[in-house]
């Protein structure tokens, strides 16, 4: 399988180059080819005009390509100075080669000074620094290698606005020093703020390379999601989208199945409002990192909200754990199917009955006959392709695993089913079957909250769409307003 097909990419010295695309677009594969984690199957890499081949990340580092990974990758309980120099500390000549601490500290101070962080005490424990500072320290570690190319993989995903601004100042300073910087991000305004050029990938293919100044936000979104953009002026976004606060919700909270007002959680979600009625399908739209998954997790009790108010059938509810949400008839198929969905070594049957059995508790065991009936029923009705119900679920294809997870929750007959990216990474036929199943469920009165980065799917499946941006709900579309164009506008719009 080809994760990346014939992508040309160039980086100039002294530029900040944003690399964009939805999950699975091939960004990380491209980075891994550049940093020697993967060997590219074809094509070649030139650094400063000379062809290079990297057998390992260490080769790439020596050649002058340093990478800061999304998960920071530093050691929390070592000092700042050690984190910057770990593995290449200057040592004394005499045995047993003790580390020259004064030199380590001096080097750390130098690297931090390039980032404008001269005041930091490098003997402090890393864990005592804020995430933003840790991010900068990771960059300092990369700079200690005196690289010519610096790759930053989603450096802003856990930073707030001020911290981002500070990071961008640093990046501009480094650009001034002649470094080439590749910067992966999902946030559109960040591209406007720092990037000189933008490369957009989609489905492993190059969509385009553009100068950031010449690119409007709406154009960028349409490039990323792969929809043609009809030159609607960005400012006219309000033609389709209503502000949430301005009475956008049609269904009053009396007949609502679930209503959320201002729910949020420190560090993951700012402020989300929306309601959903029985038999309604509501879509959550927004770019990656806009708070879609975070909203789903709060509604399901997987994370505990620390602000706002949640009402189920008009009564206030607080979910401390998924167990509570399930008791209220809420179900969730998570975004990360492998880590959070399937129980890999258990059979398809056991995976399907798990949630129902967990809800009925320890004492009431579903009889074996009932289990088989349920499992076989869903295997037939959802078209799960599997030899028999006793096959371990890990042996199934992604699409069939997803259908089995859908079956797990359908078995509990939930009032509200939250589907987080139910169609990601699965084949076209399975996609169609899952969308059809969603339609059937709605007609039976089940409410559906649908999250997908495929706008077309959202528009097809949903009667109402809540648009998220920067971890807030910013707009709501309903009825005839729900078109790809309008959603695109709302996503791309400036802050309301």
């Amino acid at each position, binding site marked *: 399988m080809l994760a990346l097909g014939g992508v040309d990419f160039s980086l100039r010295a002294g530029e900040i180059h944003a690399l964009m695309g939805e999950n699975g677009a091939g960004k990380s594969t491209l980075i891994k080819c550049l940093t020697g984690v993967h060997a590219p199957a074809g094509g070649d890499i030139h650094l400063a005009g000379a062809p290079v081949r990297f057998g390992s990340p*260490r080769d790439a580092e020596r050649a002058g390509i340093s990478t800061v990974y999304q998960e920071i*990758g*530093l050691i929390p309980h070592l000092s700042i100075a050690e984190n910057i120099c*770990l593995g290449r500390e200057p040592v004394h000549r005499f045995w047993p080669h003790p*580390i020259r*601490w004064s030199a380590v500290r001096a080097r750390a101070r130098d690297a931090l000074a390039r980032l404008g962080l001269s005041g930091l005490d490098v003997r402090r424990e890393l864990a*005592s620094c*804020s995430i933003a*500072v840790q991010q900068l320290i990771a960059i300092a570690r990369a700079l200690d290698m005196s690289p010519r190319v610096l790759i930053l993989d989603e450096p802003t995903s856990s930073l707030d606005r001020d911290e981002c601004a500070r990071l961008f100042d640093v990046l501009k300073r480094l650009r001034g020093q002649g470094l080439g910087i590749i910067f992966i991000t999902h946030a559109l305004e960040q591209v406007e703020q720092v990037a000189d050029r933008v490369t957009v990938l989609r489905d492993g293919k190059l969509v385009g390379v553009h100068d950031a100044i010449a690119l409007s936000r709406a154009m960028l979104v349409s490039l990323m999601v792969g929809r043609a953009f009809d030159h609607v002026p960005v400012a006219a976004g309000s033609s389709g989208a209503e502000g949430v606060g301005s009475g956008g919700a049609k269904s009053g909270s009396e007949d609502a199945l679930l209503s959320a007002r201002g729910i949020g959680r420190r560090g993951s979600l700012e402020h989300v409002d929306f309601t959903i009625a029985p038999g309604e399908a509501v879509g959550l739209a927004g770019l990656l990192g806009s708070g879609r998954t975070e909203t789903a997790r709060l509604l399901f009790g997987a994370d505990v909200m620390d602000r706002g108010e949640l009402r189920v059938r008009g009564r206030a509810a607080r979910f401390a754990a998924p167990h509570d949400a399930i008791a209220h008839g809420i179900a969730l198929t998570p975004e990360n199917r492998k880590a959070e969905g399937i129980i890999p070594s258990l059979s398809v049957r056991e995976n399907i009955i798990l949630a129902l059995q967990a809800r009925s508790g320890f004492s009431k065991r579903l009889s074996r006959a009932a289990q088989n009936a349920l499992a076989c029923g869903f295997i037939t009705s959802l078209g799960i392709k599997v030899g028999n119900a006793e096959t371990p679920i890990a042996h199934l294809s992604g699409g069939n695993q997803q259908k089995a997870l859908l079956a797990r929750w359908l078995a509990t007959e939930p009032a509200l089913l939250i589907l987080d990216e139910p169609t990601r990474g699965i084949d076209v036929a399975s996609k169609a079957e899952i969308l059809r199943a969603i339609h059937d469920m709605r007609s039976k009165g089940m409410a559906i909250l649908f999250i997908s980065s495929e706008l077309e799917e959202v528009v097809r499946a949903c009667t109402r769409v809540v648009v998220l941006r920067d971890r807030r709900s910013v707009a709501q579309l309903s009825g005839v307003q729900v078109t790809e164009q309008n959603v695109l506008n709302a996503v791309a719009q400036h802050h309301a």
Partner: protein
Amino acid sequence: MTLARLRPIGPLLVTFGVLLAIFAFGCFAFPNFASFAVVRNLLVDNAFLGVAAIGATFVILSGGIDLSVGSVMACTSILIATLIERGHVHPIAAFAAAVAAGGLFGAMQGLLISRFELPAFLVTLAGLFFARGAAFAIHSQSIGIGHVFVSATLNESLAFHLPFAAGGSIPITVVALLAILLASWTTLRHTRFGRSVYAVGDDAAAAALMGLPVRAIRVRVYVVSGLLSACAGVLFTLYQQSGDPAACKGLELDAIAAVVIGGTLLRGGVGSVVGSFAGVLILGLIQTIIAFQGNLSSWWARIVAGGLVLLFLCLHRGLSKLSRSRGPSPG
């Protein structure tokens, strides 16, 4: 700022506080407690446990665990006794052979753990059984050692005489313990290998991303543990003046307990050999006090040790919760 600097050594301060408190209690409760002899005996009686605990500290700091310590010590001691008494080898050569065997054994365990990704506790558990069986296979009964060199280690002739205490001397075993302590502290604190042990224990994935050879470091850690277990076995042999294949049952647990009481995180990444040394002294002091008290039974030592382990585990959790709830101080 000062708090941020103090937090990493907080558990260590608590350890020394407990040590001082127990010693003060002993001095207060028993008239002859605060004497050179008590301190000297404390060190002599616990020298081998101290070395074992230092070895355990390396492994635990790297995020692993070694349950084979006690058996390796027993195996070492009977090997030395057999070589000296039956093979007529000079003790120093016997010690060297035993320590080399310990290192080899550690390397085997390390390879199984890092190359084949077997759980450390399972491999070292098998190592515990294996070394114990090997000890009995070498010789099934304990052997007294009559060599002059060996007996000299406990009496005055091979000891450091102290100028300040009349007739006070420190046996060579204690000197060996202190030397090993110093060497281990230097290694962990001031060499690349030592720092990478902390890094691997704290976050192995990050350490790998930073380009550290994680597997090789793990193997080396178990080699160090094997070497130090064997050294502890040598000290034990000198202490007992004999080799005994049945000795040191469960000693690894005492060593691990000392490491935990010494403020080292069992998860890895945080701690120090100095703390482990203090932990050994705490365990030793408890036994000394029980011996002074006379009518308290010896099993109280185990219960108190268990309680202290729990206390320190809770302390670690409390500290980490506290630092999380306060949030990292703004940089």
